[in-house]
Protein backbone atom coordinates (compact mmCIF):
# COMPACT_ATOMS: atom_id res chain seq x y z
CA UNK A 1 0.00 0.00 0.00
CA UNK A 2 1.25 3.43 -0.88
CA UNK A 3 1.99 5.43 2.29
CA UNK A 4 -0.47 8.23 3.02
CA UNK A 5 0.76 11.68 3.81
CA UNK A 6 0.22 13.22 7.21
CA UNK A 7 -0.27 16.75 5.86
CA UNK A 8 -4.06 16.48 5.68
CA UNK A 9 -4.53 15.79 9.39
CA UNK A 10 -1.77 18.26 10.28
CA UNK A 11 -3.54 21.06 8.38
CA UNK A 12 -6.80 20.17 10.12
CA UNK A 13 -5.08 20.38 13.51
CA UNK A 14 -3.47 23.72 12.56
CA UNK A 15 -6.80 25.25 11.51
CA UNK A 16 -8.39 23.99 14.72
CA UNK A 17 -5.57 25.49 16.80
CA UNK A 18 -5.92 28.79 14.93
CA UNK A 19 -9.60 29.20 15.74
CA UNK A 20 -9.22 27.87 19.27
CA UNK A 21 -6.47 30.38 19.90
CA UNK A 22 -8.62 33.16 18.51
CA UNK A 23 -11.51 32.19 20.74
CA UNK A 24 -9.48 31.75 23.90
CA UNK A 25 -7.34 34.88 23.54
CA UNK A 26 -9.44 37.26 21.46
CA UNK A 27 -7.15 40.17 22.33
CA UNK A 28 -4.22 38.73 20.44
CA UNK A 29 -4.64 39.63 16.82
CA UNK A 30 -4.41 36.31 15.10
CA UNK A 31 -5.43 37.66 11.72
CA UNK A 32 -2.59 40.14 11.68
CA UNK A 33 -0.29 37.45 12.89
CA UNK A 34 -1.47 35.19 10.09
CA UNK A 35 -1.13 37.91 7.48
CA UNK A 36 2.50 38.42 8.44
CA UNK A 37 3.66 34.89 8.99
CA UNK A 38 1.60 32.78 6.58
CA UNK A 39 4.59 32.11 4.28
CA UNK A 40 6.05 30.01 7.07
CA UNK A 41 3.00 27.79 6.79
CA UNK A 42 4.02 27.15 3.21
CA UNK A 43 7.62 26.51 4.21
CA UNK A 44 6.58 24.20 7.04
CA UNK A 45 4.26 22.29 4.76
CA UNK A 46 6.99 21.83 2.18
CA UNK A 47 9.46 20.71 4.83
CA UNK A 48 6.98 18.16 6.21
CA UNK A 49 6.45 16.71 2.71
CA UNK A 50 10.16 16.67 2.05
CA UNK A 51 10.91 14.83 5.29
CA UNK A 52 8.10 12.39 4.57
CA UNK A 53 9.45 11.58 1.15
CA UNK A 54 12.97 11.18 2.46
CA UNK A 55 11.73 8.85 5.21
CA UNK A 56 9.75 6.77 2.71
CA UNK A 57 12.79 6.65 0.50
CA UNK A 58 15.05 5.59 3.33
CA UNK A 59 12.66 2.88 4.50
CA UNK A 60 12.24 1.63 0.94
CA UNK A 61 8.55 2.41 0.58
CA UNK A 62 7.23 3.20 -2.90
CA UNK A 63 7.42 6.90 -3.66
CA UNK A 64 4.53 8.88 -5.09
CA UNK A 65 4.93 10.13 -8.65
CA UNK A 66 4.56 13.69 -7.50
CA UNK A 67 5.67 15.01 -4.16
CA UNK A 68 2.79 17.46 -4.01
CA UNK A 69 -0.56 16.47 -5.49
CA UNK A 70 -2.67 18.68 -7.71
CA UNK A 71 -5.18 19.21 -4.91
CA UNK A 72 -2.44 20.37 -2.60
CA UNK A 73 -1.17 22.80 -5.21
CA UNK A 74 -4.58 24.40 -5.50
CA UNK A 75 -4.61 24.74 -1.70
CA UNK A 76 -1.19 26.38 -1.91
CA UNK A 77 -2.47 28.85 -4.50
CA UNK A 78 -5.47 29.58 -2.29
CA UNK A 79 -3.18 30.14 0.69
CA UNK A 80 -0.98 32.52 -1.34
CA UNK A 81 -4.00 34.50 -2.53
CA UNK A 82 -5.52 34.77 0.95
CA UNK A 83 -2.16 35.47 2.57
CA UNK A 84 -1.38 38.29 0.17
CA UNK A 85 -4.89 39.64 0.57
CA UNK A 86 -4.61 39.65 4.36
CA UNK A 87 -1.11 41.07 4.21
CA UNK A 88 -2.11 44.08 2.16
CA UNK A 89 -5.33 44.42 4.06
CA UNK A 90 -3.67 44.54 7.43
CA UNK A 91 -0.96 46.84 6.21
CA UNK A 92 -3.46 49.54 5.39
CA UNK A 93 -5.76 48.89 8.28
CA UNK A 94 -5.37 50.91 11.46
CA UNK A 95 -5.24 47.94 13.74
CA UNK A 96 -1.77 46.87 12.76
CA UNK A 97 0.06 46.66 16.06
CA UNK A 98 3.69 47.24 15.29
CA UNK A 99 5.04 50.47 13.98
CA UNK A 100 8.15 48.88 12.55
CA UNK A 101 6.33 46.55 10.24
CA UNK A 102 3.97 49.32 9.26
CA UNK A 103 6.71 51.58 8.01
CA UNK A 104 8.86 48.79 6.68
CA UNK A 105 6.11 47.30 4.59
CA UNK A 106 5.72 50.33 2.41
CA UNK A 107 9.36 50.94 1.88
CA UNK A 108 10.30 47.68 0.36
CA UNK A 109 12.30 49.31 -2.38
CA UNK A 110 15.93 50.07 -1.84
CA UNK A 111 18.13 50.26 1.18
CA UNK A 112 17.51 52.46 4.19
CA UNK A 113 19.80 55.43 4.73
CA UNK A 114 19.66 57.44 7.92
CA UNK A 115 20.34 61.12 8.40
CA UNK A 116 20.40 63.08 11.64
CA UNK A 117 18.13 66.13 11.92
CA UNK A 118 18.17 69.05 14.29
CA UNK A 119 16.93 72.63 14.47
CA UNK A 120 16.24 75.22 17.13
CA UNK A 121 14.47 78.55 17.27
CA UNK A 122 13.60 80.96 20.10
CA UNK A 123 9.87 80.95 20.75
CA UNK A 124 8.95 82.86 23.89
CA UNK A 125 6.88 81.47 26.74
CA UNK A 126 3.55 80.72 25.10
CA UNK A 127 4.08 80.17 21.39
CA UNK A 128 1.69 78.55 19.01
CA UNK A 129 3.55 75.62 17.51
CA UNK A 130 2.44 73.81 14.39
CA UNK A 131 4.04 70.53 13.43
CA UNK A 132 3.62 69.52 9.82
CA UNK A 133 5.04 66.19 8.98
CA UNK A 134 4.49 63.39 6.52
CA UNK A 135 5.32 59.87 7.41
CA UNK A 136 6.90 59.35 10.78
CA UNK A 137 6.63 59.53 14.52
CA UNK A 138 6.91 62.56 16.76
CA UNK A 139 7.49 62.87 20.45
CA UNK A 140 6.61 66.33 21.69
CA UNK A 141 7.43 67.37 25.22
CA UNK A 142 6.84 70.61 27.08
CA UNK A 143 9.79 71.84 29.08
CA UNK A 144 11.13 74.86 30.95
CA UNK A 145 12.57 76.50 27.86
CA UNK A 146 11.77 79.48 25.71
CA UNK A 147 12.76 77.88 22.45
CA UNK A 148 11.59 75.13 20.20
CA UNK A 149 14.16 72.41 19.74
CA UNK A 150 13.87 69.58 17.25
CA UNK A 151 16.15 66.60 16.98
CA UNK A 152 15.80 63.22 15.43
CA UNK A 153 16.59 61.25 12.38
CA UNK A 154 15.28 60.74 8.91
CA UNK A 155 15.26 57.39 7.15
CA UNK A 156 15.29 57.46 3.37
CA UNK A 157 14.89 54.38 1.23
CA UNK A 158 16.94 54.59 -1.89
CA UNK A 159 18.79 52.29 -4.24
CA UNK A 160 22.02 54.21 -3.81
CA UNK A 161 23.62 56.53 -1.31
CA UNK A 162 23.81 59.50 -3.65
CA UNK A 163 20.06 59.38 -4.30
CA UNK A 164 19.41 59.25 -0.59
CA UNK A 165 21.68 62.25 0.04
CA UNK A 166 19.90 64.23 -2.65
CA UNK A 167 16.55 63.33 -1.09
CA UNK A 168 17.85 64.43 2.27
CA UNK A 169 18.78 67.83 0.85
CA UNK A 170 15.36 68.07 -0.82
CA UNK A 171 13.53 67.54 2.46
CA UNK A 172 15.06 70.00 4.89
CA UNK A 173 13.79 70.33 8.42
CA UNK A 174 12.53 73.88 8.86
CA UNK A 175 11.22 75.97 11.70
CA UNK A 176 9.42 78.95 10.16
CA UNK A 177 7.73 81.82 11.96
CA UNK A 178 4.48 82.73 10.21
CA UNK A 179 2.68 85.47 12.08
CA UNK A 180 2.18 84.18 15.60
CA UNK A 181 2.76 80.63 14.56
CA UNK A 182 5.95 78.68 14.61
CA UNK A 183 5.79 75.98 11.97
CA UNK A 184 7.99 72.91 12.13
CA UNK A 185 8.07 71.32 8.71
CA UNK A 186 9.72 68.13 7.52
CA UNK A 187 8.93 68.64 3.81
CA UNK A 188 8.61 64.97 2.93
CA UNK A 189 5.96 65.83 0.35
CA UNK A 190 8.69 67.31 -1.83
CA UNK A 191 10.02 63.86 -2.65
CA UNK A 192 9.00 61.97 -5.77
CA UNK A 193 6.85 58.90 -5.48
CA UNK A 194 9.68 56.46 -5.92
CA UNK A 195 11.38 57.52 -2.73
CA UNK A 196 10.12 57.52 0.76
CA UNK A 197 11.37 59.33 3.78
CA UNK A 198 10.14 58.78 7.29
CA UNK A 199 11.15 60.80 10.29
CA UNK A 200 11.55 60.13 13.94
CA UNK A 201 11.32 63.48 15.74
CA UNK A 202 11.84 64.56 19.29
CA UNK A 203 10.54 68.07 19.83
CA UNK A 204 10.89 70.14 22.97
CA UNK A 205 8.63 73.17 23.21
CA UNK A 206 7.98 75.73 25.97
CA UNK A 207 5.53 74.36 28.53
CA UNK A 208 2.95 77.03 27.81
CA UNK A 209 2.80 76.27 24.10
CA UNK A 210 -0.32 75.58 22.14
CA UNK A 211 0.25 72.71 19.77
CA UNK A 212 -1.24 71.78 16.48
CA UNK A 213 0.08 68.75 14.65
CA UNK A 214 -0.68 67.49 11.23
CA UNK A 215 0.69 64.19 10.07
CA UNK A 216 -0.01 61.63 7.46
CA UNK A 217 1.09 58.37 8.93
CA UNK A 218 2.77 57.77 12.23
CA UNK A 219 2.49 58.15 15.95
CA UNK A 220 2.26 61.20 18.19
CA UNK A 221 3.44 61.09 21.74
CA UNK A 222 2.73 64.38 23.49
CA UNK A 223 3.20 65.26 27.14
CA UNK A 224 3.50 68.04 29.70
CA UNK A 225 1.93 70.98 27.90
CA UNK A 226 -0.24 73.71 29.45
CA UNK A 227 -1.91 74.87 26.23
CA UNK A 228 -4.42 73.29 23.88
CA UNK A 229 -3.40 70.35 21.74
CA UNK A 230 -4.86 69.54 18.38
CA UNK A 231 -3.91 66.50 16.29
CA UNK A 232 -4.96 65.79 12.73
CA UNK A 233 -3.73 62.79 10.81
CA UNK A 234 -4.67 60.28 8.17
CA UNK A 235 -3.45 57.41 10.24
CA UNK A 236 -1.87 57.70 13.64
CA UNK A 237 -1.45 56.33 17.07
CA UNK A 238 -1.87 59.07 19.66
CA UNK A 239 -0.58 59.04 23.20
CA UNK A 240 -1.12 62.14 25.26
CA UNK A 241 -0.30 62.77 28.87
CA UNK A 242 -0.58 65.70 31.24
CA UNK A 243 -2.17 68.44 29.16
CA UNK A 244 -3.36 71.71 30.69
CA UNK A 245 -5.70 72.77 27.90
CA UNK A 246 -8.21 71.14 25.61
CA UNK A 247 -7.42 68.14 23.46
CA UNK A 248 -8.84 67.69 20.00
CA UNK A 249 -8.01 64.65 17.94
CA UNK A 250 -9.27 64.15 14.41
CA UNK A 251 -8.04 61.01 12.69
CA UNK A 252 -9.10 59.14 9.61
CA UNK A 253 -7.65 55.98 11.10
CA UNK A 254 -5.85 55.06 14.27
CA UNK A 255 -4.71 52.04 16.15
CA UNK A 256 -4.81 53.64 19.58
CA UNK A 257 -5.75 56.94 21.13
CA UNK A 258 -4.70 57.22 24.74
CA UNK A 259 -4.97 60.35 26.87
CA UNK A 260 -4.19 60.48 30.54
CA UNK A 261 -4.51 63.62 32.61
CA UNK A 262 -6.18 66.37 30.59
CA UNK A 263 -7.42 69.48 32.40
CA UNK A 264 -9.62 70.74 29.58
CA UNK A 265 -12.20 69.17 27.32
CA UNK A 266 -11.41 66.19 25.13
CA UNK A 267 -12.91 65.76 21.72
CA UNK A 268 -12.21 62.76 19.53
CA UNK A 269 -13.59 62.17 16.10
CA UNK A 270 -12.85 59.84 13.22
CA UNK A 271 -12.29 56.17 13.06
CA UNK A 272 -9.97 53.86 14.85
CA UNK A 273 -9.40 50.91 17.04
CA UNK A 274 -8.69 51.36 20.75
CA UNK A 275 -9.52 54.43 22.81
CA UNK A 276 -8.41 54.99 26.37
CA UNK A 277 -9.15 58.18 28.29
CA UNK A 278 -8.29 58.54 31.93
CA UNK A 279 -8.44 61.36 34.49
CA UNK A 280 -10.07 63.99 32.31
CA UNK A 281 -11.25 67.12 34.11
CA UNK A 282 -13.27 68.55 31.21
CA UNK A 283 -16.11 67.23 29.14
CA UNK A 284 -15.44 64.27 26.87
CA UNK A 285 -17.00 63.86 23.46
CA UNK A 286 -16.16 60.88 21.31
CA UNK A 287 -17.74 60.57 17.87
CA UNK A 288 -17.04 58.03 15.17
CA UNK A 289 -16.38 54.40 14.58
CA UNK A 290 -14.05 52.64 16.97
CA UNK A 291 -13.71 48.91 16.68
CA UNK A 292 -11.40 47.97 19.53
CA UNK A 293 -11.55 48.35 23.25
CA UNK A 294 -12.84 51.65 24.54
CA UNK A 295 -12.18 52.63 28.10
CA UNK A 296 -13.06 55.79 29.99
CA UNK A 297 -11.93 56.10 33.54
CA UNK A 298 -12.29 58.89 36.04
CA UNK A 299 -14.06 61.50 33.93
CA UNK A 300 -15.11 64.53 35.98
CA UNK A 301 -17.55 66.17 33.56
CA UNK A 302 -20.21 64.86 31.17
CA UNK A 303 -19.04 62.07 28.92
CA UNK A 304 -20.69 61.50 25.58
CA UNK A 305 -19.93 58.61 23.29
CA UNK A 306 -21.54 58.57 19.85
CA UNK A 307 -20.59 55.39 18.08
CA UNK A 308 -22.20 54.01 14.99
CA UNK A 309 -24.29 51.43 16.79
CA UNK A 310 -23.89 52.38 20.42
CA UNK A 311 -24.35 55.71 22.14
CA UNK A 312 -24.14 56.58 25.75
CA UNK A 313 -23.94 59.58 27.97
CA UNK A 314 -23.17 59.96 31.64
CA UNK A 315 -22.94 63.05 33.79
CA UNK A 316 -19.73 61.93 35.41
CA UNK A 317 -17.73 58.74 35.64
CA UNK A 318 -15.89 58.28 38.93
CA UNK A 319 -15.49 54.67 37.98
CA UNK A 320 -15.24 53.52 34.41
CA UNK A 321 -17.08 52.91 31.19
CA UNK A 322 -15.70 50.12 29.10
CA UNK A 323 -16.79 48.87 25.73
CA UNK A 324 -15.27 45.79 24.15
CA UNK A 325 -16.34 42.74 22.18
CA UNK A 326 -20.10 43.16 22.25
CA UNK A 327 -20.18 44.41 25.79
CA UNK A 328 -20.72 47.75 27.47
CA UNK A 329 -20.05 48.13 31.16
CA UNK A 330 -20.67 51.30 33.12
CA UNK A 331 -19.44 50.99 36.66
CA UNK A 332 -19.66 53.62 39.37
CA UNK A 333 -20.99 56.33 37.09
CA UNK A 334 -23.30 59.20 37.93
CA UNK A 335 -26.49 60.01 36.08
CA UNK A 336 -28.54 61.07 34.31
CA UNK A 337 -27.35 58.15 32.25
CA UNK A 338 -28.50 57.39 28.73
CA UNK A 339 -27.62 54.24 26.83
CA UNK A 340 -28.73 53.29 23.32
CA UNK A 341 -27.35 50.14 21.77
CA UNK A 342 -28.23 48.09 18.74
CA UNK A 343 -26.62 44.83 19.64
CA UNK A 344 -24.68 44.73 22.84
CA UNK A 345 -24.84 43.28 26.33
CA UNK A 346 -25.03 46.17 28.75
CA UNK A 347 -24.15 46.24 32.43
CA UNK A 348 -24.78 49.35 34.44
CA UNK A 349 -23.48 48.90 37.95
CA UNK A 350 -23.16 51.00 41.09
CA UNK A 351 -24.68 53.99 39.43
CA UNK A 352 -26.54 56.87 40.98
CA UNK A 353 -29.09 59.15 39.41
CA UNK A 354 -31.50 58.24 36.67
CA UNK A 355 -31.01 55.71 33.88
CA UNK A 356 -32.59 55.62 30.43
CA UNK A 357 -31.75 52.62 28.36
CA UNK A 358 -32.77 51.30 24.99
CA UNK A 359 -31.25 48.07 23.69
CA UNK A 360 -32.33 46.25 20.55
CA UNK A 361 -30.61 43.00 21.20
CA UNK A 362 -28.58 42.10 24.21
CA UNK A 363 -28.75 41.09 27.83
CA UNK A 364 -28.98 43.84 30.37
CA UNK A 365 -27.89 44.06 33.96
CA UNK A 366 -29.05 47.00 36.07
CA UNK A 367 -27.57 47.41 39.49
CA UNK A 368 -28.10 50.81 41.09
CA UNK A 369 -26.13 51.84 44.13
CA UNK A 370 -27.93 52.82 47.29
CA UNK A 371 -26.79 56.45 46.94
CA UNK A 372 -29.05 58.98 45.28
CA UNK A 373 -31.49 56.57 43.61
CA UNK A 374 -33.13 57.81 40.43
CA UNK A 375 -35.75 56.83 37.92
CA UNK A 376 -34.90 53.80 35.80
CA UNK A 377 -36.41 53.19 32.38
CA UNK A 378 -35.13 50.30 30.28
CA UNK A 379 -36.61 49.08 27.01
CA UNK A 380 -35.12 45.93 25.55
CA UNK A 381 -36.44 44.38 22.33
CA UNK A 382 -34.72 41.08 22.67
CA UNK A 383 -32.71 40.09 25.72
CA UNK A 384 -32.75 39.19 29.38
CA UNK A 385 -33.00 41.78 32.11
CA UNK A 386 -31.41 41.34 35.47
CA UNK A 387 -32.38 43.96 38.01
CA UNK A 388 -30.35 43.84 41.20
CA UNK A 389 -31.40 46.27 43.90
CA UNK A 390 -29.51 47.19 47.04
CA UNK A 391 -30.77 46.11 50.46
CA UNK A 392 -33.51 48.37 51.72
CA UNK A 393 -33.91 50.18 48.41
CA UNK A 394 -37.21 52.00 48.00
CA UNK A 395 -38.61 51.78 44.50
CA UNK A 396 -41.87 51.52 42.64
CA UNK A 397 -41.14 48.55 40.39
CA UNK A 398 -42.79 47.52 37.15
CA UNK A 399 -40.80 44.86 35.26
CA UNK A 400 -42.49 43.26 32.26
CA UNK A 401 -41.60 40.62 29.70
CA UNK A 402 -43.80 39.93 26.69
CA UNK A 403 -42.38 36.48 26.32
CA UNK A 404 -40.04 34.84 28.80
CA UNK A 405 -39.43 33.63 32.32
CA UNK A 406 -39.86 35.62 35.48
CA UNK A 407 -37.92 35.49 38.66
CA UNK A 408 -38.58 37.41 41.83
CA UNK A 409 -35.94 36.95 44.48
CA UNK A 410 -36.76 40.20 46.11
CA UNK A 411 -39.56 38.71 48.14
CA UNK A 412 -42.89 39.74 49.52
CA UNK A 413 -43.60 43.34 48.54
CA UNK A 414 -43.30 42.38 44.86
CA UNK A 415 -45.95 40.34 43.10
CA UNK A 416 -45.23 38.02 40.21
CA UNK A 417 -47.94 37.54 37.58
CA UNK A 418 -47.92 35.37 34.48
CA UNK A 419 -49.71 36.88 31.50
CA UNK A 420 -49.75 34.67 28.42
CA UNK A 421 -46.21 33.73 27.50
CA UNK A 422 -44.76 36.55 29.53
CA UNK A 423 -45.59 38.25 32.75
CA UNK A 424 -44.62 40.93 35.19
CA UNK A 425 -43.04 41.60 38.53
CA UNK A 426 -44.72 44.60 40.12
CA UNK A 427 -44.87 46.23 43.49
CA UNK A 428 -43.55 48.90 45.78
CA UNK A 429 -40.75 48.49 48.28
CA UNK A 430 -41.28 51.96 49.68
CA UNK A 431 -41.77 55.49 48.53
CA UNK A 432 -39.14 56.02 45.90
CA UNK A 433 -38.42 56.51 42.22
CA UNK A 434 -40.00 54.44 39.48
CA UNK A 435 -38.39 51.51 37.77
CA UNK A 436 -39.89 50.64 34.39
CA UNK A 437 -38.27 47.66 32.74
CA UNK A 438 -39.66 46.02 29.65
CA UNK A 439 -38.34 43.32 27.36
CA UNK A 440 -39.98 42.00 24.21
CA UNK A 441 -38.44 38.62 24.55
CA UNK A 442 -36.29 37.40 27.43
CA UNK A 443 -36.23 36.56 31.09
CA UNK A 444 -36.78 39.19 33.75
CA UNK A 445 -35.39 38.80 37.22
CA UNK A 446 -35.58 41.14 40.17
CA UNK A 447 -33.17 40.42 42.97
CA UNK A 448 -31.54 41.81 46.05
CA UNK A 449 -27.80 42.37 46.25
CA UNK A 450 -26.39 39.21 47.76
CA UNK A 451 -28.58 36.72 45.92
CA UNK A 452 -26.35 36.77 42.93
CA UNK A 453 -25.56 34.07 40.49
CA UNK A 454 -21.90 33.19 39.96
CA UNK A 455 -22.07 34.50 36.41
CA UNK A 456 -22.05 38.06 37.62
CA UNK A 457 -18.47 38.32 38.72
CA UNK A 458 -16.66 41.41 37.58
CA UNK A 459 -13.91 40.87 35.02
CA UNK A 460 -10.56 40.31 36.64
CA UNK A 461 -8.75 43.10 34.85
CA UNK A 462 -11.06 45.84 36.01
CA UNK A 463 -11.12 47.45 39.41
CA UNK A 464 -13.86 46.41 41.78
CA UNK A 465 -16.44 49.11 42.28
CA UNK A 466 -16.44 50.27 45.87
CA UNK A 467 -20.22 50.21 46.34
CA UNK A 468 -20.72 46.57 45.50
CA UNK A 469 -20.53 44.58 48.72
CA UNK A 470 -18.71 41.27 48.76
CA UNK A 471 -20.75 38.38 47.52
CA UNK A 472 -22.42 36.32 50.18
CA UNK A 473 -22.11 32.59 49.78
CA UNK A 474 -25.41 30.93 50.38
Amino acid at each position, binding site marked *: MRPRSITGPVILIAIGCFFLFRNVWPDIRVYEFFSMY*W*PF*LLIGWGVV*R*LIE*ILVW*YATGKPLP*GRGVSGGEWSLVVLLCVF*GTFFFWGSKWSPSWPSRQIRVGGLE*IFGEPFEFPMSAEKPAGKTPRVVVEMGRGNAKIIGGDTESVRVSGRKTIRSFDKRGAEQSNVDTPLEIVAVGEQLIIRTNQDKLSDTQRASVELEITVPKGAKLESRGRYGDFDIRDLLGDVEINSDNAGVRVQNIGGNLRVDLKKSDIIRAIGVKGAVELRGRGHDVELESIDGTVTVTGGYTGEILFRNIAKPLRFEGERTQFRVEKASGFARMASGNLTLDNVQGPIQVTAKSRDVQVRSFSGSLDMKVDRGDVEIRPSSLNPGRIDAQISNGDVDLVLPQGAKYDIDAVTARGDLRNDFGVPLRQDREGKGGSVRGTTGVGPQIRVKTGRGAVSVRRVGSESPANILPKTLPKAPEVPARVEQ
Partner: protein
Amino acid sequence: MNGTNNLSLMRAIRGPVMMITIGTLFALDHMSAFSFSRTWPVILIVIGLMKLLERAFPAPAQS
Protein backbone atom coordinates in the same frame (compact mmCIF):
# COMPACT_ATOMS: atom_id res chain seq x y z
CA MET B 1 17.11 -0.17 -10.03
CA ASN B 2 18.85 2.20 -7.69
CA GLY B 3 18.98 4.81 -10.47
CA THR B 4 15.22 4.61 -11.06
CA ASN B 5 14.59 4.96 -7.39
CA ASN B 6 16.82 8.02 -7.22
CA LEU B 7 15.02 9.50 -10.17
CA SER B 8 11.62 9.01 -8.58
CA LEU B 9 13.01 10.58 -5.39
CA MET B 10 14.08 13.63 -7.37
CA ARG B 11 10.64 13.83 -8.97
CA ALA B 12 8.90 13.44 -5.63
CA ILE B 13 10.82 16.18 -3.86
CA ARG B 14 10.28 18.64 -6.70
CA GLY B 15 6.90 19.72 -5.32
CA PRO B 16 7.96 20.24 -1.71
CA VAL B 17 11.11 22.09 -2.75
CA MET B 18 9.04 24.47 -4.89
CA MET B 19 6.68 25.00 -2.00
CA ILE B 20 9.52 25.86 0.36
CA THR B 21 11.01 28.23 -2.23
CA ILE B 22 7.75 30.10 -2.77
CA GLY B 23 7.15 30.28 0.97
CA THR B 24 10.62 31.69 1.55
CA LEU B 25 10.19 34.30 -1.17
CA PHE B 26 6.87 35.45 0.30
CA ALA B 27 8.39 35.58 3.77
CA LEU B 28 11.24 37.71 2.40
CA ASP B 29 8.70 39.92 0.65
CA HIS B 30 6.81 40.53 3.88
CA MET B 31 9.73 40.93 6.20
CA SER B 32 12.64 42.42 4.31
CA ALA B 33 13.49 44.76 1.50
CA PHE B 34 13.48 41.94 -1.07
CA SER B 35 10.07 42.21 -2.67
CA PHE B 36 8.57 39.35 -4.61
CA SER B 37 8.69 41.43 -7.77
CA ARG B 38 12.46 41.39 -7.50
CA THR B 39 13.07 37.85 -6.30
CA TRP B 40 10.77 35.81 -8.57
CA PRO B 41 13.60 34.63 -10.90
CA VAL B 42 14.77 32.46 -7.99
CA ILE B 43 11.83 30.18 -8.80
CA LEU B 44 13.11 29.69 -12.35
CA ILE B 45 16.60 28.98 -11.05
CA VAL B 46 15.30 26.38 -8.59
CA ILE B 47 13.25 24.66 -11.31
CA GLY B 48 16.30 24.61 -13.54
CA LEU B 49 18.47 23.16 -10.78
CA MET B 50 15.94 20.43 -10.07
CA LYS B 51 15.83 19.48 -13.77
CA LEU B 52 19.62 19.38 -13.87
CA LEU B 53 19.75 17.11 -10.83
CA GLU B 54 17.18 14.79 -12.42
CA ARG B 55 19.41 14.52 -15.45
CA ALA B 56 22.28 13.40 -13.24
CA PHE B 57 20.40 10.11 -12.79
CA PRO B 58 19.73 7.95 -15.83
CA ALA B 59 16.08 7.73 -16.87
CA PRO B 60 14.58 4.21 -16.58
CA ALA B 61 13.94 3.88 -20.31
CA GLN B 62 17.60 4.47 -21.13
CA SER B 63 19.07 2.21 -18.48
